[in-house]
């Protein structure tokens, strides 16, 4: 039928893995409630599959063969690759949607040179969102990756074009499809500076995202982002793709910097237009 939901969320491993170490449990619970509201929104949309536009951390792709974009077209996916005790998410098999994912890939290929993969392992970048958005792993998931890790990275204007292509593909399908872009805004994860968050930068980015300000969103250079938002800021690609897919204004339902979780935790959704 079409794209029926588009949103964004965080995926930092601390959100689940370090949840019981947090002092301000009320703050954690507010984040979890926002995730639960997003789950309900997706459920209410009637979505038959969930596209997760992610920024993986070397679960499938390495610098021997790094695609700018890849769509997972397998019947099933596996995850997490990380120690389940560390992430606090057990290893599981996630249902895919081979038929729909293949049709979407064929459609996207008309305008963006996307790779596809019939094998997919999920790291925290997909497992954390799924843990909240389909806790029993019942909703078929179509994983999508944008290279935010191995420079040279996917250019922001291409991430925008990819979002448009995903939207056109979804709208050409008979199924109802939801899409979530998941990435950090400013953060310095997996460095000794973990917990550093540039809240002002985040709020400016989220404002541009919510306003669908394409020119302002695509004007960030990687050098600026690295200096002001850390290497974790490279993941804004996933959020930009989600905005482009949605087309309508965004609303940020939750944003709070949580240093223990190493990111300004964010939940938002877009109008579809």
């Amino acid at each position: 039928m079409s794209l029926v939901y588009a949103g964004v969320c965080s995926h930092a491993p601390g959100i689940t893995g370090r949840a019981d170490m947090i002092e301000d449990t009320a703050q954690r619970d507010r984040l979890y409630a926002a995730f639960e509201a997003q789950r309900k929104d997706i459920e209410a949309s009637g979505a038959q599959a969930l596209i997760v536009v992610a920024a993986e951390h070397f679960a499938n792709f390495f610098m021997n063969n790094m695609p700018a974009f890849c769509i997972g077209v397998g019947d099933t996916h596996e995850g997490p690759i990380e120690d389940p005790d560390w992430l606090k998410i057990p290893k599981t098999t996630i249902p895919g949607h081979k038929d729909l994912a293949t049709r979407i890939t064929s459609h996207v290929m008309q305008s963006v040179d996307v790779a596809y993969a019939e094998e997919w392992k999920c790291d925290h970048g997909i497992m954390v969102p799924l843990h909240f958005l389909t806790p029993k792993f019942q909703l078929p998931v179509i994983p999508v990756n944008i290279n935010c890790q191995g420079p040279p990275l996917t250019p922001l204007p291409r991430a925008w074009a990819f979002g448009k292509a995903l939207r056109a593909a979804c709208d050409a399908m008979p199924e109802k499809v939801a899409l979530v872009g998941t990435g950090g805004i400013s953060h310095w994860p997996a460095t000794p500076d973990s917990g550093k968050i540039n809240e002002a930068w985040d709020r400016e980015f989220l404002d541009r995202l919510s306003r669908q300000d394409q020119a302002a969103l695509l004007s960030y250079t990687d050098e600026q982002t690295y200096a002001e938002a850390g290497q974790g800021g490279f993941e804004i690609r996933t959020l930009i793709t989600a905005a482009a897919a949605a087309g309508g204004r965004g609303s940020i339902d939750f944003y709070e910097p949580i240093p223990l979780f190493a990111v300004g935790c964010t939940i938002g959704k877009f109008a579809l237009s």
Partner: protein
Amino acid sequence: MSLYQVQKFLYHLNRDDKVKAAYHSDLVTLLADYELTQEEQHALTEGDVGKLYVIGVNGQILMHFAALLGIEWFDYLERMREGVRQHGPVRDGVYAMTGGGASFTSSSNNNSKPTGAHQ
């Protein structure tokens, strides 16, 4: 240059349960497939997170490796700082320490002892 090989090994290790099993049973044979300097080989064999961080291993790859080794969160962050103190700044990649070694996690959350593994 062999940083690529170090990361490739850790990439395989982090994502493949069979490689994880071999890591514990026959690390020497496993590492023979990669072109490593002595320094890199030693750091991998010892699970020296601080040295691997300074060598320039991508932080995400290193974080998953530290989790595999069962290193507690604040200990892991401290081992990277200690690596910089001992071996100098990060030599490659985009995961350099930019905060001067300070902790950005509130100290109230940071009361675990920076030693040992969590199990």
